[in-house]
């Protein structure tokens, strides 16, 4: 491998360490936020926002998604879209139910 690659990897390593500190801090923040006495809905919202940020950091930096090829994006976009389709349609169908079952 050439020298530029080694440079590149060294730069990467710095990013990994920053990412790690961000993740650690956010973990503490999310636990702390949960002990605040906010309404359940707000609490869920805060926790999910933090989790999404953390997830993005892991996927983007550790899994190198920030610099991935188009093909991988395509696969993931379809998948995430279908996940939301599944979630939303199941929920709305069950909420729309005329006869409640449970």
């Amino acid at each position, binding site marked *: 491998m050439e020298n530029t690659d*080694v440079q590149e990897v060294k730069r990467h390593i710095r990013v990994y360490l920053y990412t790690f500190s961000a993740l650690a801090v956010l973990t503490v923040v*999310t636990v702390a936020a*949960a002990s605040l006495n906010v309404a*359940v809905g707000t609490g869920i919202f805060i926790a999910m926002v933090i989790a999404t940020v953390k*997830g993005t950091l892991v996927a983007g930096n*550790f899994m190198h998604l920030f610099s991935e090829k188009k*093909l991988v994006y395509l696969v993931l976009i379809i998948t995430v879209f279908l996940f939301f389709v*599944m*979630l939303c349609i199941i929920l709305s169908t069950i909420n729309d139910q005329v006869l409640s079952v*449970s």
Partner: protein
Amino acid sequence: MEIPYTVSPRPDTGIHNGKLGIWLFLASEVMLFGALFSTYILLRTSAIDWPLGSDNLNVPLGTFNTLILIISSVTMVMAWASLMMKDFKKYKLYMGLTIFLGILFLVVKIAFEYAPKFAHHHYPSTNTFFGIYFVLTGLHALHVLGGILVNGYFWGPGSKMWKKAPQQFINRIEIAGLYWHFVDLVWIFLFPTLYLL
């Protein structure tokens, strides 16, 4: 004819076979955990009252385990970076650490979380909250176990490949890493959902 693009990327897609393969596999995993996650939301929204995770589960241990997994993600990616810098010794060290942290996670999970739950007669059948808690974390633990086995192979017998086909070995570690980070990512969502909300 030999199978092409097992090591070097295909020019028009820019990736090699293994990488596409693992991403497709992870896509199916997204749907697997996605379905369980949907189940959680559905059970919770239709429940008359839902036990709070923080009242029933051990939050400090959960936080500890979250940190363990995050650190193991860092060591995993460092193992890959070490190989990129041709430092096989460091690779062994980081990969060994990753495996150790994975095992630590499982020990905490099983010995210090599941066992006391059972001791307090909290079983999956106790209510739907514990049901989905055990299913989600159990399935996640199985994924961790799978990751440990794969990493263990690449730490031990599998690492012989480094001498013969270094680029292919780097690819494999990258793929194992993608899987491991994904397992971490799932936990990042499971932890707040189950423990904190």
